[in-house]
């Protein structure tokens, strides 16, 4: 989707609930997310990369939807219109020693 990022989205104005934790794993607040959006981080992917919101141990399984609704509201678009983040393996955390034990040798 074409997006001219020069457009000013209004600038950051503090809100009473800016202190709310949104990403429970990385302890990222609503205010940090809103500020980043006003700083030009305009996609869910950029917010993940810039703030690590949704990049913690649970990989955004709890906050993904919440971050999305904050971004949608700040940009004034419906949440479903936002480009979703890309899925990454492993979908559950796996210890390196377990991952290392995958030898699958065919004897055919």
């Amino acid at each position, binding site marked *: 989707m074409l997006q001219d990022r020069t457009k000013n989205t209004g600038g950051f104005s503090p809100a009473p609930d800016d202190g709310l*934790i949104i990403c*429970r*794993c990385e*302890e990222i607040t609503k205010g940090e997310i809103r500020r980043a959006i006003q700083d030009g981080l305009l996609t869910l992917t950029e917010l993940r990369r810039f703030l690590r919101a949704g990049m*913690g*141990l*649970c990989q955004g*399984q*709890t906050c993904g939807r919440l971050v999305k609704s904050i971004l949608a509201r700040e940009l004034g678009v419906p949440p479903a219109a936002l480009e979703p983040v890309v899925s990454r393996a492993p979908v*559950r*955390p796996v210890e390196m020693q377990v991952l290392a034990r995958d030898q699958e040798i065919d004897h055919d």
Partner: protein
Amino acid sequence: MRINEHPVLGGYPKGEAVAFTFDGARLSGYAGEPVAMALKAAGVFIHRYTRKNHSPRGIFCAIGRCTDCVMIVNGRPNVRTCITPLAADMDVRTQYGMGAKHAAL
């Protein structure tokens, strides 16, 4: 906190009663049930304190997804206690930040 008799389910199949330690204190639970359930039944509700804000966390999703209930189990941090089966003599500790207490302070 345990339900002894349930109007629909009746009783609950339980493993053998076992002892384990929580921050050094001796507690009991049933082998095979999630560590988090044994803690809950014993009245323990704080599993860890977070790294940035040092705020308490406990069970949240109870199915291994949210990772809020992680603790140090047998010396390893970030263990999801809601899906880790309890075993006799397990050493379960409150997690501070990413590890033991000294590391966070």
